[in-house]
């Protein structure tokens, strides 16, 4: 008997929630502009697939863009690649990072908003690219292999390789 009472109360509560929801969705307060705002908020801006749009157009001379891609499920090497790339930049290129002459972008290839940039680099999983931008032109260097080879067990070597390649690209 007690259980039947509880079920009845629960049923009434659910009914109120449904009716409340129906009324609020159809209430005159919910104007057209609210609906547009709701749609706008739901959309996440997509990331540009144009490499040159990442470089600072006000800078004279070459600049370097580092693109690091990964999947949602990341392995130990993938995490080590990102960590050691960041370490390289923080240790040797903090001035260039502050100036905007070097930028690092990290994107999840499984996230649809990054589809365009992932496609530009044909990245479907972990990948690391050093891009030189100069005079409105870009040249891409794929260093993913170096990352996988050294990041976990010889990070110093990876840092040395990245430092040397970035310096080369800044010339």
């Amino acid at each position: 008997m007690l259980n039947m009472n509880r079920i009845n109360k629960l049923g009434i509560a659910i009914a109120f929630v449904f009716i409340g929801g129906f009324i609020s969705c159809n209430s005159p307060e919910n104007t057209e502009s609210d609906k547009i705002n709701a749609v706008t908020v739901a959309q996440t801006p997509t990331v540009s697939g144009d490499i040159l749009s990442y470089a600072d157009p006000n800078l004279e001379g070459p600049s370097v863009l580092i693109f690091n891609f990964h999947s949602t499920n990341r392995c130990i090497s993938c995490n080590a690649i990102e960590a050691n790339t960041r370490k390289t930049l923080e240790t040797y290129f903090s001035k260039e990072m502050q100036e905007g002459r070097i930028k690092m972008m990290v994107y999840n290839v499984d996230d649809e908003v990054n589809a365009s940039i992932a496609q530009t680099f044909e990245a479907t999983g972990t990948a690391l690219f050093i891009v030189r931008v100069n005079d409105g032109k870009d040249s891409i260097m794929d260093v993913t292999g170096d990352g996988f080879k050294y990041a976990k067990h010889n990070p110093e070597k990876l840092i040395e390789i990245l430092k040397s390649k970035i310096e080369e690209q800044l010339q």
Partner: protein
Amino acid sequence: MKKTIFLMLLLFIGVASFKPTEAVNPKTKVLVYYFHLTERCHTCTTIEATVVSLLNEKYKAQLKDQTLVFKSINTDDKANEALCKEYEAYGSTLALTKLKNGKVVKKEDLTNMAFSKINKPELFKGELVEKINPMLK
């Protein structure tokens, strides 16, 4: 006398460095080694699977008579330490080695090529064939 001993020592070191770390069949002309960590990502396993598929597809006879040898090597395994050191393989690494009479003639690291082209398996396989074929001669 001292000079002769020194020169002999140098010669010995020189010869020793050209011998592969692992004992190989004197008939073997090409070693295809794929190094990896214990914890592997999808790309790493795909590279190995693609290499194995290519070798089985194009080099079945050479695999059988050991003219070509493929090995998958775990870099986290202490037993492989010397081999990993020889190839500077600290993680995923694809390496080709040309041998002549059991001695190393040439080594080629294809890791960057593998990771950048694995999304296009036919292109990757094509480049691998271009590297392996001259080494088999």
